[in-house]
């Protein structure tokens, strides 16, 4: 097992480098940050001076190697816009994103898993159809639309909840305040997550229920509860772990649209701004982070598989 992990990590390094090369190339296609800095009074000389200062006068591949060299030294560079260190920017905004996404993910799965199981067990009944329909609705409603409805309802009309931000300006903060700010964005996200996963869990459980060993369990007279919640569920863990594993990168990537609408100071927000401003160092910093997270998530998922599925052997 240990050798397997080592092998995976070793393979991950060239993959990571490959990803960053691709990212850098695509990014440079969007145009130079210098264009974003043009104002009516900018002279050519000033532009050139800026270019040299930022190292943008060199060819793209040289720029890439410079960036890579710095990264290997632990330096992610400085934002072209704010001159802040990229690592600091990421650090400051990572927390809120994880908080928001983590809560939404947990809530979404807490809804999706039991409902998915229920739906599978009661296949083809009215309850099942209702749940599947609800699930479609949940995953199909555009999140911005739902967000706007919520804001209109709970903020404008009822005045119960704040319309944005992480805490009330000028207030003393505190958990209750934080929670009030989180309710709407978390709900919107959770609805979307639950929507797509109810059907996934349902079909995973349905497939398991077709298996012979479920019939054997039933024939032993152990009762329906144990048959489903012990025999079926334990096997369903495998596809469920897949789902969770697939969602981990989202935890870090954030939901760009939601963060915009609710002014949530997370990674999604700053990534969007960085892209619009062609802030190369920030974009690459986030891209690197995302790549690392995806690779790590895959590895962790595979390891968890090996732990919960006795038929898998990684040697």
């Amino acid at each position, binding site marked *: 097992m240990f*050798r397997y992990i080592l*092998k995976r990590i070793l393979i991950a390094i060239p993959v990571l480098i490959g990803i960053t090369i691709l990212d850098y190339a695509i990014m440079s296609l969007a145009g130079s940050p210098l264009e974003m800095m043009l104002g009516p009074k900018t002279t050519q000389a000033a532009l050139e001076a800026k270019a040299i200062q930022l190292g943008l006068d060199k060819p793209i591949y040289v720029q890439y190697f410079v960036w890579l060299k710095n990264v290997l030294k632990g330096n992610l560079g400085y934002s072209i816009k704010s001159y802040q260190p990229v690592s600091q920017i990421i650090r400051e905004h990572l927390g809120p994103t994880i908080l928001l996404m983590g809560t939404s993910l947990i809530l979404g799965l807490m809804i999706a898993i039991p409902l998915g199981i229920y739906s599978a067990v009661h296949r083809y009944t009215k309850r099942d159809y209702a749940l599947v329909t609800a699930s479609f609705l949940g995953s199909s409603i555009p999140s911005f639309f739902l967000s706007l409805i919520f804001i209109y309802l709970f903020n404008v009309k009822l005045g119960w909840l704040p319309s944005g931000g992480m805490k009330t300006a000028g207030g003393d903060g505190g958990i209750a305040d934080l929670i009030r700010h989180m309710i709407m964005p978390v709900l919107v996200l959770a609805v979307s997550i639950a929507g797509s996963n109810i059907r996934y869990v349902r079909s995973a459980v349905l497939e398991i229920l077709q298996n012979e060993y479920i019939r054997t369990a039933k024939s032993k007279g152990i009762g329906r509860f144990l048959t489903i919640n012990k025999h079926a569920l334990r096997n369903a863990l495998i596809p469920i772990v897949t789902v969770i594993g697939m969602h981990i990168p989202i935890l870090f990537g954030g939901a760009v649209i939601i963060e915009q609408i609710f002014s949530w100071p997370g990674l999604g927000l700053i990534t969007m701004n960085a892209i619009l401003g062609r802030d190369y160092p920030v974009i690459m910093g986030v891209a690197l982070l995302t790549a690392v997270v995806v690779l790590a998530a895959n590895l962790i998922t595979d390891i968890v598989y090996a732990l919960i599925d006795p038929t898998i*052997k*990684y*040697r």
Partner: protein
Amino acid sequence: MNRKDNEKPLIVVEGLKKYYPVKGHVIKKNRPVIHAVDGVDLEVYEGETLGIVGESGCGKSTIGRQIVALERPTSGRVLYRGEDISHMEPNRLRKIRTGLQMVFQDSTSSLNPRKQVYDILAAPMLYHGIVKKENLDQEIDRLLNLVGLPKSMKYRYPHEFSGGQRQRIGIARALSVKPRVIVCDEPVSALDVSVQAQILNLLKELQEELKLTYIFIAHGLGAVRYVSNRIAIMYLGRIVEIADTEELFDNPVHPYTKALFDASPMPNPELRGRERIVLKGEIPSALSPPKGCRFHTRCPYAIESCTTDDPMLLPVKPGSSHKAACPVLAPKGGSHV
């Protein structure tokens, strides 16, 4: 069957070994290996049926695959009409392939479910240029008739047929390229008893009509007896006994053969209480076959030397074509060096 004295065999298998490495090991040196076939010699003459019988892991299907050149042996070779097909270069092999065909056990998975019968039969014929486009229809009708399927069904899909009918389609497909040899890999095992009989009869008729040579692989003695002229019994990658059919049934020598006979279900309740060899234990893994005689771990006749000496396949009587690999019950046998 009558064989001319100096007739050369159509197929010769020499020292065939096929090992499959177990996947997933980084270090190649000590990689465990499945010894599917571990040293087999065979000859098959034109027009005859050689039956190969054995249980899981004996290597019979693997041999079948080497004979039709679906895989390359790890060592040893297969000669077809005197030419070594195991190491033949691909272009030449492609031309020869039509002579060697296979009928598979599981008709459900060996027929493309998305293709109509028409296309399944047409494809190989067109590829090898066996028929011209104008004659295709006629040829397909002829094939379907040959295997007893109504022409009206040629535009149906495999799942619309019964198991027995699908097997007929598989046979038609094998026949479409006008082979000389057909390897039948457990062609009736997945079928109901009454349908098995139909297919066995069909195979026999076709053999006579088209002068085919069969290698019939099975795990049960009953079907094999009906179609084969000679039978080879395999255990864990080796042939343990080989003889003409009636000779084998009258006089099985090797302990495993005897056990196989005893274990074969007989539709006669009077035979219930009879004395039988009930083998102890499980079939050993092909990853590490037992030392000495491979069968000794389950053999009721095993003696001390069986744990160390690997027996050779030798005639049970001088000059006999009936051979067995057991020094205990067929004392003329010796050991592998």
